[in-house]
């Protein structure tokens, strides 16, 4: 069964969500991954949305983190403080974040491209809830296409903390201990972080992708796990559920080629 890169990333992301855990997601791919996980590996995954939705039965892909789908037949329709405080209290296992730039410590830029904050070359949305979720949730995941413009030596702006400058830096800054980047899932590979250095490390490479390809599409120097596997591709069942039940209108999985 063939699949596109978005379908691949969604399936891989879903597998990383443990059952009975809690995840805060946004719209798009991450939400699709959480929905797929609920229908496969994690039937009791609780999905939270930062505007207040808690444990909805999602009838379709939400367009906004605050639209009525995000609390459709929910366990609770709450508020932004309630969701953020649940994170700050330490009860939320996962979040997914995106951004225009990532560095080797998993720091994320979603604020601006350029060097002058008062007159940026490109103004992007900013933190939204990203800084909050990346600071407070236990494990932060990123799903993104892989290229050298995105995986950069230095972010123009660090919107959301990854491991900042390396081991101990989050704690020194005052962020909750034990939190931080967990996985980066791209169209080329799956990466985690090396425990000792807190640097991004390739764990598995997708079928048909070469190591060289990954190196060329990454501006910084990557680490490589001792054993690098080939990524297990999406199963037929995963794809079927994703296409028929999670995103039947091709809203998200139609985006990638």
């Amino acid at each position, binding site marked *: 069964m063939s699949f596109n890169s978005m379908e691949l990333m969604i399936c891989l992301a879903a597998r990383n969500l443990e059952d009975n855990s809690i995840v805060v997601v*946004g*719209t*798009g791919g991450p939400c699709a991954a959480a929905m797929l996980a609920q229908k496969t590996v994690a039937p009791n995954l609780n999905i939270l949305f*930062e*505007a*207040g*939705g808690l444990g909805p039965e999602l*009838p*379709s892909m939400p*367009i*906004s*983190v*605050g*639209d*009525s789908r*995000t*609390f459709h037949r929910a366990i609770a*329709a*709450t*508020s*932004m*403080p309630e969701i*953020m405080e649940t994170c*700050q209290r330490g009860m939320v296992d996962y979040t997914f974040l995106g951004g225009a730039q990532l560095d080797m410590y998993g*720091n994320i830029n979603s*604020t601006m491209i350029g060097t002058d*904050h*008062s*007159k*940026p*070359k*490109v*103004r*992007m*949305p*900013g*933190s*939204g*809830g*990203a*800084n*909050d979720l990346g*600071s*407070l949730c236990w494990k932060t995941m990123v799903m993104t296409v892989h290229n050298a413009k995105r995986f950069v030596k230095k*972010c123009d*702006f*660090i*919107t*959301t*903390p990854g491991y*900042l400058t390396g081991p101990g*830096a*989050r704690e*020194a*800054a*005052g*962020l*909750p201990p034990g939190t931080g980047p967990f996985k980066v899932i791209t169209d080329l590979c799956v990466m985690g972080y090396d425990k000792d250095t807190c640097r991004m490390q390739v764990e598995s490479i997708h079928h048909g992708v070469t190591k060289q390809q990954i190196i060329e599409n990454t501006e910084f120097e990557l680490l490589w796990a001792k054993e690098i596997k080939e990524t297990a591709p999406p199963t037929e069942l995963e794809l079927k559920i994703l296409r028929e039940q999670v995103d039947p209108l091709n809203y998200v999985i139609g985006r990638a080629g």
Partner: protein
Amino acid sequence: MTNLKIKDNPDLFVKPDVNGMREYFRNKPLKMVNKVTTVKEAVEKYVKDGDYLGVGGFGASRIPAAVLHEIVRQKKKNLGLSGHTATHDMQILAAGDCFNRCDIAYVVGLEARGLSKTSRKAFESGKVKAVEWSNAALAWRYKAAAMGIPFMPSRILLGTDTAKYSAFETITCPYTGMKLAALPALFPDIAIVHVHRADVYGNCQVDGIMISDSDLVRASKRVIVTTERLIPHELIRENSDRTVIPYFCVDAVIEVPYGSYPGNMAGEYFSDEDHLQEWLEAEKTDESLKKFLDKYIYGVKDFNEYLYLCGGIEKLRKLRNQEYLIDTNK
């Protein structure tokens, strides 16, 4: 009355002057009187050039669109804006060139829908002064203000460039020694929110998520509420544990059915994604935007005309079907 020397920081658009605000709230008329008015009059009376504005809802969900249009129509200028997931709301205000400074959580984007060119230009041109925060930061800044305390301790923003371009102080916890971000109370001059039900006095009830509106209205000096429907005061008293905004926070109440359009209103109507795309399209050139605004905002006398131009009751009927997940092909 207050002799506090509040730290001067030009990036702190609103000072966390809890004593000054106590005096303000003390002198605010707290009478439970009929506050029903028109959007036009409410904006004329309560929104002043230069005011700091907080907008309820979340991007394009439960937003006070009628008031936002009227602010543009009345050409309010130099507003400060709390960019607490400001998406379509910011797009409207940017089109009207209404604000010159912004506390940023989420701006210029419309979430999955794309980016607003006008909003981007406002920042990229250097015209709007930008100070960085996050959604939780602005939510908790409202909360501190609503609680009457000058700051809220938190564990966010630390260690990032978001912090460098922000305006908060870090403090050391007197118990644990840990470093905390002390988020300064944010007291907007004016808050505008849209709710499901209100009585003429401004007692309001909302279905579904509250987002940050409970704290926003308590934090603000003046509050304009638009409501899908006015209900008898009796109904408020019969469901008093549903009241999320008490009258004494509210200055003006306006009944605006479909008042969140083209945004979503939980249980009432889904967002009009076609019209939101029309907005994004219109922003491609200055000419097309001008034409669009002339048609939909400057050229109409009120929100009712705008709704009619966008398809009127028939369109809104379809959006209700969509909200209810009723297949409209049949």
